[in-house]
């Protein structure tokens, strides 16, 4: 046996590794299954089930003339974001720390910060793709109109993803293991989805619950998305709530995150 000393030519351009790292993380994301099945497949399945229920396609007086399905499309979008950010991301990152993968990267020029960046990029990208898929399936399959205020809708999606991914990073920062991170993420998921109107649409909640919902990231997200779908620019308060979660949990995660 002999080790060849052939060196490939110096890698071109700046940071060739970051692109490869992101592509590799995307492959792992797909192989890991939690994200693709629960974060993308399951919301799509719900959309198809809801869309096939006859009464869901009739305008409802309670929803100001909107159909139940129209009310549920934003809920399904935040459902997907919540799975990716609260379950898939913390499980992967806490697992990476547990297995010493982050520490291993610390000994290379790449460094673990860029691994976090790559993970966030993957989750943002999957979110964008998934939102487009849901909107297109809802439009073509069940005649749900595309959002009338498209820019407002896009901003609400990105802010919602930022807020939830920050919470997910915080969970990953504080949980001891990949399994613990997934458990904490799941525990957070249900109340957050409740206030997003998964079981009872926000408009039909009692006043107190509606109030709380306004202050939760997913409640604010669903309302901003529903508004933008109907053609309004999202309310400043909704955007501020999401931005506040993104900043507060993002900073806390950055402060608490440990590489080992």
């Amino acid at each position, binding site marked *: 046996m002999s080790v060849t000393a052939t060196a490939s030519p110096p890698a071109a351009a700046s940071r060739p590794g970051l692109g490869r790292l992101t592509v590799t993380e995307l492959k792992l994301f797909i192989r890991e299954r939690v994200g693709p099945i629960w974060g993308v497949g399951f919301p799509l399945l719900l959309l198809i089930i809801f869309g096939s229920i006859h009464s869901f396609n009739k305008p409802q007086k309670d929803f100001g003339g909107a159909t139940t399905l129209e009310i549920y499309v934003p809920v399904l979008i935040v459902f997907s974001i919540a799975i990716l950010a609260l379950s898939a991301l913390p499980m992967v990152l806490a697992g990476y720390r547990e297995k010493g993968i982050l520490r291993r990267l610390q000994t290379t*020029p790449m460094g673990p910060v860029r691994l976090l960046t790559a993970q966030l990029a993957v989750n943002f990208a999957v979110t964008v793709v998934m939102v487009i898929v849901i909107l297109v399936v809802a439009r073509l399959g069940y005649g749900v109109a595309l959002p009338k205020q498209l820019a407002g809708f896009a901003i609400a999606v990105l802010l919602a993803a930022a807020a939830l991914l920050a919470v997910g990073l915080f969970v990953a920062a504080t949980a001891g293991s990949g399994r613990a991170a997934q458990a904490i993420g799941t525990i957070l998921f249900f109340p957050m989805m409740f206030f997003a109107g998964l079981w009872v649409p926000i408009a039909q909640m009692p006043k107190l619950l509606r109030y709380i919902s306004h202050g939760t990231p997913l409640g604010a997200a669903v309302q901003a998305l529903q508004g933008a779908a109907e053609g309004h620019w999202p309310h400043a308060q909704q955007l501020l709530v999401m931005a506040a979660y993104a900043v507060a949990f993002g900073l806390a995660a950055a402060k608490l995150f440990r590489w080992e």
Partner: protein
Amino acid sequence: MPAVIEVQNLHKSYGDTVAVDDVSFSVQEGEIFGILGPNGAGKTTTVECVEGLRRPDRGEISVLGLDPQRDRAELTQRLGAQLQDGELPGRLKVGEALALYSSFYRTPADWRALMDTLGLADKSSTRYGKLSGGQKQRLSIALALVGNPRVAVLDELTTGLDPQARRDTWQLIEDVRSRGVTIVLVTHFMEEAERLCDRIALIDTGRVVAVDTPAGLTERVQTEHRIRFQPSVPFDDRLLTSLPDVTSVIHRGDVVVVTGNDNALNAVTSVLARNNIVARQLRVEQASLEDAFVALTGRHPESEQHARESRPGQN
């Protein structure tokens, strides 16, 4: 030859626990330098400071003229590390891992050639989680070398490997060194240190007990040589006890055990020859590195058997 690694008065504590009390040594270019010591002696903490993973409380470290903390980015280009518990994502394939890690470096090695060299070529599309302990270890070594480093720090290189895989790995390390890579090897296996290392720093409770060649360390312990044999005919003990180099003669059944200094063997065999006594099954026991280890640290090294059992699920 210039020193590649210079460590002076390194001290590192975790809370009240002193991991490294006062460690100094220097590693010359192109050598295989062993860091040997009992569990918890501070070996890993020492090399983690060298790698820049931990910030020393006190002391000076220079690696290739770089400060591991201040010049971290540059150091990672030139120093390859194999960590004791560094895993990879279970679903990452061998080829992907090597291609990925090689993309981190300015002047990487040819990862495909490295994969061949380490006998992983047919595992290129196997997921990390499906590899055996030996294969994982070989991949870990490959990743430490994929950046074409000047210095490689290998922590507990062969723990959890079966004897054949361990010997193959040793061969590999010697090949890497012959390429001019300086190697720091953390180990608690005597055989490994004796076989591979040019020099060894023996560390105990956070301090350097001795820095020497394996032979030099062995010479430090003045254990007596023991000669065992079966004489072809009975003889008078005084024949041997009268020799100045012999300290005692004991009979154990048919076997005679003679102890003495390192000249005793010569003296005993010539006396026996002169008296026409044939020494059958002649054996000489000398001080080993293990004796030196025990004498210098007052402890027994962890046996290989135990080390293997303490890491179940590998191999």
